[in-house]
């Protein structure tokens, strides 16, 4: 028998369909009898679905500005270097 603690550790694998058929059956049996774990698994599923719908946070504007400036600088240097190597 799986304990509630076991369920809490493998709930993602259950929801992501990464369990063997046998384990999956054992989880299903536990969930059938345990409303607490059913609650947990449903809530975890809502959490995952919510994560699927939101994006990775964007960096702050100041970070973006600084990084873009560095990129422009890198690109300029690369261009200058390639010119130098192409010159006879």
């Amino acid at each position: 028998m799986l304990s509630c603690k076991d369920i809490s550790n493998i709930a993602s694998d259950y929801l992501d369909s990464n369990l063997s058929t046998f384990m999956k059956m054992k989880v299903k049996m536990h969930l059938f009898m345990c409303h607490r774990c059913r609650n947990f698994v449903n809530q975890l599923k809502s959490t995952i679905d919510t994560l699927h719908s939101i994006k990775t946070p964007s960096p702050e504007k100041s970070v973006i500005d600084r990084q873009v400036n560095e990129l422009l600088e890198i690109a300029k240097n690369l261009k200058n270097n390639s010119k130098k190597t192409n010159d006879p």
Partner: protein
Amino acid sequence: MEQLNEQELIEKLLAGDEHAYRYVVQAYHNNMMYVAKSIVGPAIADEVIQESWISILKALPKFEGRSSLKTWVLRIVSNSAKSRLRKESRSVAMGDASDLEMLSLPADRFHENGHWTAPPKQWNMASPDELLSSEELRDIIYKTMDKLPPIQQSIVSLRDMEGTPMEDICKILDVTESNSRVLLHRARAKIWLEIERYQGNQNVKL
């Protein structure tokens, strides 16, 4: 910029288009940071990102499109970070065993026999739509994410928020699939805990 396909984006990047740079920085920077921090730690992650960008812009004309641009970029970050570690003769310590032995939920949530001591509370907002409609909850998710170890940030962001294939994530982070699944579950469980705490506080207020 959103409507550009990857080929057009690459052409613009090769042409040195500032808007294209801005677009990729906005879309990739945080993930680049999570990956760099996972491997070298926070102190020199910034330097690794700068070194990575030099490699990325140098190699971009040879990009063959065998993976998505983002996966390719993140693998360059990972390689830069690992070579940086080698230079400093430090070993790579990612997703190490001590971290994997931890439980996904706090031990005091369970009795010794494995039953819940404090079962999950009922949620007022239970469906993803309801969860998404609350700006406060979105903030809570982002704040919780901020506090996760960088490797968990990488995995939850790449897998759950961006749908990157697990196989690519394992290559980028140099972790086995089973470890990455444990780390992903741990990250999700922490986010679940914070949502639960928030909803519990709401109940008290009502």
